[in-house]
Every structure is written in structure tokens, then in C-alpha cells.
């Protein structure tokens, strides 16, 4: 049974994606991610010295601040902050810089459905832009369950509100590595079959949820190519340190952070070129 979506997309079709990095000047890393009309801007500062009181000082700490487009900050913003923080904690390598805080500031520019997955994608790109060490990238997607049992991907706000239930899922980006194939599997399953974060709203049956997982994973393959492709072309300009230096007005030193960022992007480039 075909579902007619309001904007004419098929059930499996995503909205047009756009990602741009290094938008802000003061922030150490910044990225904006657009899915259709939903647009989120994320800035990353870090690592900064010290951790907050209740955090483990033997690890790096991630702090997320969620800024809604307008209105007061309330409980739902706190919930988003917690979800993004836990997701990013699982992809960052936390032992490299102990006793530091990395701040991730999320600004919602427009909300037209699938807001949280959009923010997670943007945060991941911003972390790469800032050069924060990551284990792997993460891609997030939102799946909606219609009354008929049909699953549609990447809903708009109207669709989200009218559907029976929806789930947002975050999957690890597939790793392109020079290491042998076997080492990429975790307990016999390929690594990209794992789920980093999953949240649902509304009631759905177990089978429906597993269907969502399957569909979401297939779709994130496309998203991860977009993400990877976006991270690549900047490498030509990143390779020249002169460029990096000219970006800073007065201080001629390139920080360790930017250096790390270049190395990380070189990694991605070489990894995908061997693929």
C-alpha cells in the first residue's frame, strides 16, 4: 500500500540534505545541518580545562547546551541536552584528554520535523570540524509509524504530529579501515549494525520497531555518504597550514586542536580512498 505523503516523497525518501562546516569564526568547530526545512546550527568549544562537579575527572566531559528558536528554556530542552550528550559521549574517545570539558551548543534555526536527529548529525559534523577525537561518526534518522503499519522516514512536523508513533535512531557510521575485515565486527555482527541511541514516542509493536531499525539503518547508509563527502573537500584547504594560520587574526600559532582536526580529516580521506 502506497502512502501519499504531503510533499510527494515516497515512504523511504529523505528530504534534501545539506551540511556546511566552519561557519562561525569564534567557535572552535561549527556545522549546520539542514534536512528539508529543519535547520540546526551547532558550535563546539573545547577541550577546556576542568570538569563540572559531578563528572568523572578521569575522563573528558561533554557538555551540551540546547537553545530553542524562541521561547523559554524548559524541560524538553533539558531532555534533548541529555540525549545529545549521551550520544556524543559514546562516540568520543574520552580517555585522550582527561579532566577537560568540551561544550557543544545547539541552536535550532527552524524546526520542521526530525529535529533531534538533525541536531545529532550537526553535532557530529561540528565535532569533526573542531578536531575532537572520535571513535567513529554517527548518523541519526527519524522513522514514523503510520496507522496502517507503514513506516515512513524523515517526517515533517505535520507528519510527526499526525502519526501513531515515531522513533529516532542513531547508528554508527560504517568504518572504512585498512585493518582486516574481522576486526570490524563486534561479537560476530558488523559494527554498523549497532544502535547508539534510540528513542520512541507513541506506542508501537515490537515488530514495527524492528522494522524501523531495518529501514533506518538502510537509509543511514545514504546519509553517511553525504556526511563523509562533506567532510572531504575541505581537506585540500586544511592541508595548508598557512590557511589555518591566516584564519586567526593575530596569533600565528596553530593550536593543537586544529592540527588534530587536520589529521582526523586526512584519516577520513585516506580511508575512503582505499575503499
Amino acid at each position: 500500500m502506497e502512502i501519499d505523503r504531503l510533499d510527494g516523497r515516497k515512504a523511504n525518501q529523505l528530504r534534501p540534505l545539506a551540511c556546511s562546516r566552519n561557519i562561525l569564526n569564534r567557535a572552535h568547530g561549527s556545522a549546520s545541518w539542514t534536512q528539508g526545512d529543519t535547520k540546526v546550527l551547532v558550535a563546539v568549544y573545547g577541550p577546556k580545562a576542568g570538569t563540572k562537579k559531578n563528572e568523572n575527572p578521569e575522563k573528558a566531559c561533554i557538555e551540551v547546551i540546547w537553545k530553542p528558536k524562541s521561547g523559554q528554556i524548559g524541560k524538553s530542552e533539558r531532555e534533548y541536552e541529555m540525549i545529545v550528550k549521551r550520544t556524543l559521549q559514546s562516540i568520543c574517545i574520552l580517555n585522550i584528554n582527561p579532566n577537560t570539558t568540551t561544550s557543544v551548543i545547539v541552536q535550532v534555526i527552524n524546526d520542521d520535523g526530525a529535529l533531534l536527529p538533525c541536531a545529532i548529525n550537526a553535532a557530529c559534523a561540528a565535532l569533526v570540524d573542531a578536531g575532537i577525537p572520535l571513535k567513529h561518526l554517527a548518523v541519526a534518522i527519524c522513522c514514523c509509524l503510520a496507522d496502517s503499519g507503514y513506516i515512513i522516514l524523515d517526517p515533517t512536523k505535520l507528519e510527526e504530529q499526525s502519526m501513531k508513533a515515531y522513533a529516532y535512531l542513531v547508528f554508527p557510521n560504517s568504518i572504512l579501515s585498512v585493518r582486516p575485515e574481522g576486526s570490524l565486527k563486534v561479537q560476530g555482527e558488523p559494527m554498523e549494525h549497532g544502535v547508539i541511541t534510540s528513542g520512541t514516542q507513541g506506542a508501537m509493536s515490537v515488530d514495527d520497531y524492528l522494522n524501523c531499525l531495518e529501514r533506518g539503518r538502510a537509509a543511514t547508509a545514504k546519509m553517511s555518504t553525504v556526511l563523509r563527502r562533506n567532510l572531504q573537500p575541505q581537506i585540500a584547504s586544511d592541508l595548508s597550514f598557512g590557511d589555518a594560520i591566516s584564519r586567526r587574526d593575530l596569533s600565528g600559532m596553530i593550536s593543537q586542536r586544529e592540527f588534530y582536526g587536520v589529521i582526523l580529516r586526512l584519516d577520513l580521506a585516506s580511508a575512503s580512498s582505499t575503499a
Partner: protein
Amino acid sequence: METRLANSFRLTVNEKKFIETALQSDLRIDGRRPFDFRNISIKFSREEGSAEVQLGQTHVMAFVTAQLTQPYKDRPNEGTLSMFTEFSPMADPSFEPGRPSEAAVELGRVIDRGLRESRAVDTESLCVLSGKSVWAVRVDLHILDNGGNLVDAANIAALAALLTFRRPECSLGGEDGQQVIVHPPEVREPLPLIIHHLPIAVTFAFFSNESTVVVDPTHYEEAVMGGRMTATLNANNDICAIQKAGGEGVLQSVIMQCLRIAGQKAYDITTKIKNAVESYNTERALRKIKRHPSAVALDISGAGVNIGKNQNKPLKGDSERSNLTSEKSVTDQSMDIEGEAKSSEQQQTNKIDGDAKNFIGGPSSWDPYSAGVNSDFLKASLASRGMTMPSRKEQGSRGENMSGEAKPVDPPEDINVSSSNIEAAETVLRTNGERTLQDAEYLRLAYTGLAYFSLELTEVKCKVFRL
């Protein structure tokens, strides 16, 4: 928190000395002259009332929303305008989330004073029901990147957002005429705010050596400066507000010189804002035909749809995403139905009966955009872009075309031609018994098109723009 202090922006002594010494020879570190502004770029997003301003490296976004509330007791006939400033931590590592800092409060107050005290925004027109119900306009300013001179950038963003904001039209109804009915944008065209003039803030930074003054300081210069002054003026050289809170003492002659310079800068910036808003308004009007279906897409599937040839295409609600080519082919029709935005490449028209959306506002409002899209005007602009559309030229064949295919109307270049169009339309009306509603609407648009057609394009734009 000590950890926060470790992240605040500190300039070294060498850097400070460098900036000051360079200023003594009238050199600024980014190569500007002392009284040059940085490049201003104003962008709007698709929804109304949101503006993004970049002043050099400073990046500010403004969002305007409006709600119906009760008025203040001492001003029962006036609406309210309130500013909320957010110094987001993404702008500067030293901005902390939570309570707004002094600088944030000061920025909000300066911009608010410039708009409110000078009566730039007309609050009396925001009154719906005296003493009971007025519009409360709220401006949210998000500082995204602090490259210095946040006040000026935020002021421009707030003005641009207020100029492009549209509030829903509402009327009084109910049994006793006391109930306020808010019309959704699909039914009645939303109205812009009445803004009498544009107060522009210009910030000066004073340095301790020999009364050096610069305009539009960057954040490096702000860290070095001894004092600052913000003068809010409009293009008529009226001073709306002056803010000099502490800092270095400055000679009177320097202040007068600054005010003169501020006058010139205010005039330049006003023209830039007006140009940006104008081009946004024209672009929005061209898109307006397609704005309706995205909102009424849910109704169309239920109502009786008179679809010409493509029955199976689901209605494309949000056709704003369609690219420019499909936009052009959509504006063939005098109606606002766009579902076939994508399919109109095949020159099909979908006619939906009982569509009263184009009859917006009365003849009393001379705003050509609120009268529904002027099909002739659009076709003229399309023709001037050189789009080739098949069977566009014949006027005589319009009779047959009206009944089924895309309506090829040659944009009449002068009044004589357009009057013959109207005659042709009238004959069609008489001959074609069915589809009378659509013909009537076409006639109406053609008549309004007559009036506007004799004007130059720029004149039409000036009418829309209420400044």
C-alpha cells in the same frame, strides 16, 4: 567558575600595544579606515519575520513572533513590543548560559529604547480590542558569533526581521462584536507591521591615545578600547537614543563629530536594509502562489477537486522546495493551486472550484500582493527573464486555452493590448458556461492588472513598501 575564567578571551600585552600603535597612524588591524563599517549582509529565511545579519565576523539572527494578549492597564490602546536577547555560548567562550550578563541586558535595552521611545514601530495599530486584546510582538535576538559590535548587528537584524514580519489579520465578530477572530494566513493575507522610520545604531570606540575614535570595533578592538558610545539615529538625522555608559571621558567636539558621522552611516545602512527587504518582498510575492497549497493540502484531498489530466499525482504540499523552473511554469495560472507545480511542465492546469483564497483584502487595499497574485505582472517578469513557454503568444487562442490547457496569456505591454485581453476574457466568459468562478477571478485579476500594468515595476514595489 574558575574553569570558565580559563576560557575567557585575553589579549597579550604585545597585541594590545600593536593595536593601539597602529591606530595612532589611522590603521586598523583588519585594514579598514577608522570610520569604515564592515560588510553587512542581510539574509532572510523562508518564513516571515526572521533575519540573519552578518557584520564582518559578527553573526546575529532575529526572530519575530506575535501573540494576542491583554494590554497594560495604563495603555489600553497600544500593543507591546518586547526584546529578548540571547548571548548564546556559541558566540564567545566567555558567554555563559543562564542569566543574561550585563552586556546582554544593555544590548537589549539599547535596541529596545531605539525602537520604542522613538515610536518607530506603531503600537497603536496593534490594538485589536481596546482594553482587552492587543498584539504583543516579541523579538528574539540570538547572537551566534561575536566578532565585535554586537549592538549594531543586532539592531539591523531586529529591524530587518520586523520589516518582513507579517501578523495574521483579525476582525471582531461574535454576537456582541467583542470576540476576536484571528484569520489564518490562507484565508486572509497577513499584514505587515507599521514602521515609521528605521533607527540605526552606530557604535564608536574610544581609545586612550589622543582621542582616537573608530567606528564598528572588532572584538580585538573592543578588548583594547577605553570607552564606547552607541548613537541611534534614523535616516532623517533624528537622534533616537545615545548610550555612553562610563568609560573614558571624551571631548564634546569629538562627540559632535561622532554624531555627524553616525548620521551618514545611518543613511547608508538604511538604504542597505531597504534594498534587502525589497528584494525579499518581490521574491516572496512571486512565491506566493505556492504558499497556499502547503497549508491547505490537507483540505484539497477532501474537497471536490477538478483535476484536469493527472489524477494520480498526490498533491504536492510544500512546493516551496521546487526549483525555479517549476516555479515559472506554475505561475501560468491565475489560481494559486500548485499541486501541479511539478507536473506543469506538461502544461496542465488543475482547477479547484470554490477557491476563494485569492479574494483577499478588498479593493480598498492597494497592495498589489494582497490582492492575490497579479498574473499579468508575474508573466511580465517571467517574459523578461526570457523563459520560453510554448503557445504563449497568441491572445486570440485564449478562448480555447481557458477551457482546458495551460493559459497562455501574452503579458500585454500597454493598456490597449490588455483591454483587448479583457474583452477576450469577457467573450470567453459568455461563451463558456462552465468554470465561471475561474473566469470571474481571471477577469478580476485582469482588471487589477490593468491598473498596475501602467506603472513601472519599481513604482509597484514602492507601493508595497510602506516606508
